[in-house]
């Protein structure tokens, strides 16, 4: 199982119900394949940066899912077939998430270490020279 984000653009003159219908279909594909749709977001209408199939704007939809490659392949195939969907993009997120977690953990570790070092340095500075002296 991997985490993916699937973003697609639905034609701007598609009514809200059609978008919901597409979302429902895709969710069906995910659950049927044993995956999980974590989040379905309708990002609303946006101007496109360039014309796609002669459209200047489109409604964006974002799926955040947990699924296998086979499910993603099936979803992409369906999106390609649908006339209302003018563009789609699948991005694998788990590597990215792993990277972010690592950075976060690293930051936290450093922050705690720095905090502790500050606290200890005050105590250690006093006795250590005195302890060294008799040994010499």
């Amino acid at each position, binding site marked *: 199982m991997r985490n993916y984000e699937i*973003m697609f*653009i639905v034609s701007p003159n598609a009514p809200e119900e059609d978008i919901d219908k597409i979302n429902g279909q895709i969710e069906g594909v995910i659950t049927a394949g044993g995956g999980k749709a974590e989040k379905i977001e309708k990002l609303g209408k946006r101007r496109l*940066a360039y014309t*796609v199939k002669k459209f200047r704007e489109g409604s*964006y939809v974002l799926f955040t899912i947990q699924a296998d490659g086979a499910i993603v392949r099936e979803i992409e195939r369906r999106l390609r077939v649908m006339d209302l969907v003018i563009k789609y*993009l699948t991005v694998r997120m788990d590597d990215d998430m792993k990277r*972010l977690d690592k950075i976060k953990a690293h930051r936290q570790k450093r922050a705690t270490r720095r905090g502790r070092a500050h606290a200890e340095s005050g105590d250690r500075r006093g006795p250590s020279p005195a302890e060294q002296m008799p040994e010499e």
Partner: protein
Amino acid sequence: MAIQKQYYRRKKVCKFCVERIDNINYKDVKLLSQFVPERAKIMPRRISGVCTPHQRLLSDAIKKARNIALLPFATE
């Protein structure tokens, strides 16, 4: 006799390192568009001052954003 130009160039710093932005996401158009000048090209590191690892993430994100029409490939 060579006359040395006496101007001070400010040291460029990586925006992502300074502001601790870890997540360079393709959906964050506001952030990405700062690194896409008018011609819609990706701003080179020598101008923006972004460090190598972050520039790599940034260019990947910009390319993904272009693919889903959030950012342009070229100006029309």
